[in-house]
C-alpha cells in the first residue's frame, strides 16, 4: 500500500550549493561504524577522521548531504557533507521538536540531547557553539498549505531553515 516514504525529508540547500563546483564547501569522509547518518543531520569528524553524529567542541560541524546507507556512499566509502563554516541556507528535518525554532535569526546549535538534531540556544549562552541562524521563519511545514503536498517523499514536511555560520566557542586564555 502506498509508496515508500522516508521518516524525515532529505536535506535541501536553498542557497550556496553547486555540486559541480569546487567553490562549494563540501567534504567527504568515511562514516564511523558506530553510527548511521541521515541526510540533514549534524555531523562532525572524530579523531580518526570519520563522521560521527552531532557536534564536537572545537571541530567544524557539517550537515550530511546523503544517508550513510545510500548506495553511492556505501560503494565509495565516503559520505559528503556541507561545512557549517561555509555559507549555505539549509532546510533540515532533524531538529529538536520540543523547542520553538519559529522565527528569524534564532541561533542554532547542535542538540546536545539528540545527536544529529539542531536546536536553539539563547544568544550569549556560555559554551554555545552556534552553527547558524534561522532564516525564512525557521520552523515551517512545507505541507501546511491547502492543495497537494509539496513534500511527498517524507512522512511530513516539517523543516527548519537556517543559514550556516559556525561560531566556535573561544575560551579566553587564563
Amino acid at each position, binding site marked *: 500500500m502506498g509508496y515508500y516514504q522516508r521518516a524525515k525529508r532529505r536535506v535541501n540547500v536553498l542557497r550556496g550549493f553547486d555540486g559541480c563546483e569546487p567553490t562549494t564547501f563540501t567534504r567527504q569522509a568515511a562514516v564511523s561504524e558506530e553510527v548511521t547518518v541521515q541526510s540533514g543531520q549534524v555531523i562532525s569528524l572524530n579523531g580518526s577522521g570519520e563522521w560521527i553524529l552531532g557536534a564536537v567542541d572545537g571541530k567544524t560541524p557539517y550537515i550530511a548531504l546523503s544517508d550513510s546507507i545510500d548506495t553511492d556512499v556505501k560503494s565509495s566509502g565516503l559520505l559528503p557533507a556541507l561545512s557549517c563554516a561555509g555559507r549555505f541556507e539549509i532546510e533540515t528535518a532533524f531538529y529538536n521538536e520540543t523547542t520553538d525554532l519559529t522565527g528569524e535569526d534564532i541561533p542554532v546549535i547542535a542538540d546536545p540531547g539528540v545527536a544529529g538534531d539542531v536546536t536553539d540556544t539563547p544568544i550569549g549562552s556560555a559554551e554555545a557553539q552556534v552553527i547558524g541562524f534561522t532564516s525564512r521563519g525557521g520552523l515551517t511545514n*512545507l505541507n501546511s498549505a491547502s492543495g497537494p503536498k509539496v513534500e511527498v517523499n517524507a512522512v511530513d514536511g516539517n523543516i527548519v531553515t537556517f543559514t550556516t555560520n559556525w561560531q566556535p566557542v573561544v575560551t579566553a586564555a587564563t
Partner: protein
Amino acid sequence: MAKNPNTDLIEKLDPDLNRELTNSILDARNGEKMTKLAAAGEDYIRTHIRESGFMRKILPPKPISNEELDRVVEHDRPVRFEELETNHKGAVSLPFNVTSDTEFFYGPKGQIDFHTIRTPVFTKNVNELRTYHHDIQKVVTEHQLNDIETREDAAFIDLCNLIVGTVSPTGGKSGLQQHFKAGDGTNNTSEELSGGMSKEVYVEIQKKLENFRLNNGVMLMNTKTAKEFSKYDSLAIGDTMAGKMFKEGLKGMGDAVVGGVPHVYTIKDDLVADNVIFCFTEPNYLGRFYTLQDIQLFVKREDDQIKMYASEVVGAGILNVAGVVKIDLNE
C-alpha cells in the same frame, strides 16, 4: 434421450480441456454473462445471486510480463516498482539581479508484491457426477471464478479501509481526512453530509476527492444504498428519469453514471455496508493491478476422480493513498 452435461464433460476430457474451460469461462466473464447468474436459466434452483468482482472495475487489471518485473536482492520473489509523480515548491516572483533557490527533487517509488489466489481443490467421483441433471461442474467452475474475484474485492476493501482510517481530520493515510461520517461531531463536514443521500449531500460527496485535486473515477456502493436514487423525485432528476426509475428501478438510469461519475453497485454488503460509499479517483491516479497469471482453471482426472481448482497470481496496490475516500451516511 436427454444428454447429461456431466457425462459429456467426463467423456470429452482431453489434454486441452483446461485451456478450453479457462477460455470459455474468461470469455463469459468478458461478456459480463456471469454477472448476476440468477438470470442464466439453468435447470436447477439457485439459492442466491452471485456477481463478478468490483475491484476490476475500479482498478482494471493489466497483464505483466517477466520482462516488466523487477528484482530485489533479498529474495527471488517477483516485484514491480512503480514510480509516482513528484511534487515541489512552485515558481516565485523575483526582482531583477537575483535568482531563485536551489531545490533537490526526488520521485517517490512504491513496490507491488505478487501473491496467489486459489480456490479449494474440488474433488468428485465421476460416477457421482452422472446423477446430476444439471451441469454441476460448470456451476462449481463459475463459483470458483466468482470466489477468486470476491477474494480480490475483500483484500481491496480491507486496503481501502486501512487507507481511509478513522473519522478524524488527520485520520487518513494521506495525513488528511479521508473517512467522513454523517452527523459525527468530530469532523467539520458533519452538517453537509446529514440527511441521507439527498441530491445536496451527493454533490458534497462528489467534492471530497477534489480536495486532493483528484477527479472522481468510480463510486462504489452496495445495491441497497444505490436504491436511494429511486427516492429522488421529479424536482431532483426530472419527470422522465423519475418515471423511468419508478418503473424500472436502477435499470431506468441506463448506464450507471451520476454527475458524470461511473458508479459500481455490488451485492456484497459484507464488504460495502449499507449507506457507505467509496469514492475512487481515476485508475492512473490511484494505483496498479497486475495479473502475472490471470485466472486459470485446472482440471485433472485420475481413475474415477476429478479434481479441479482455479488459480491466479496477482499484485495490486493503491499507491496514491489520497485516491480513495469513504463516506458513511449512517448517523
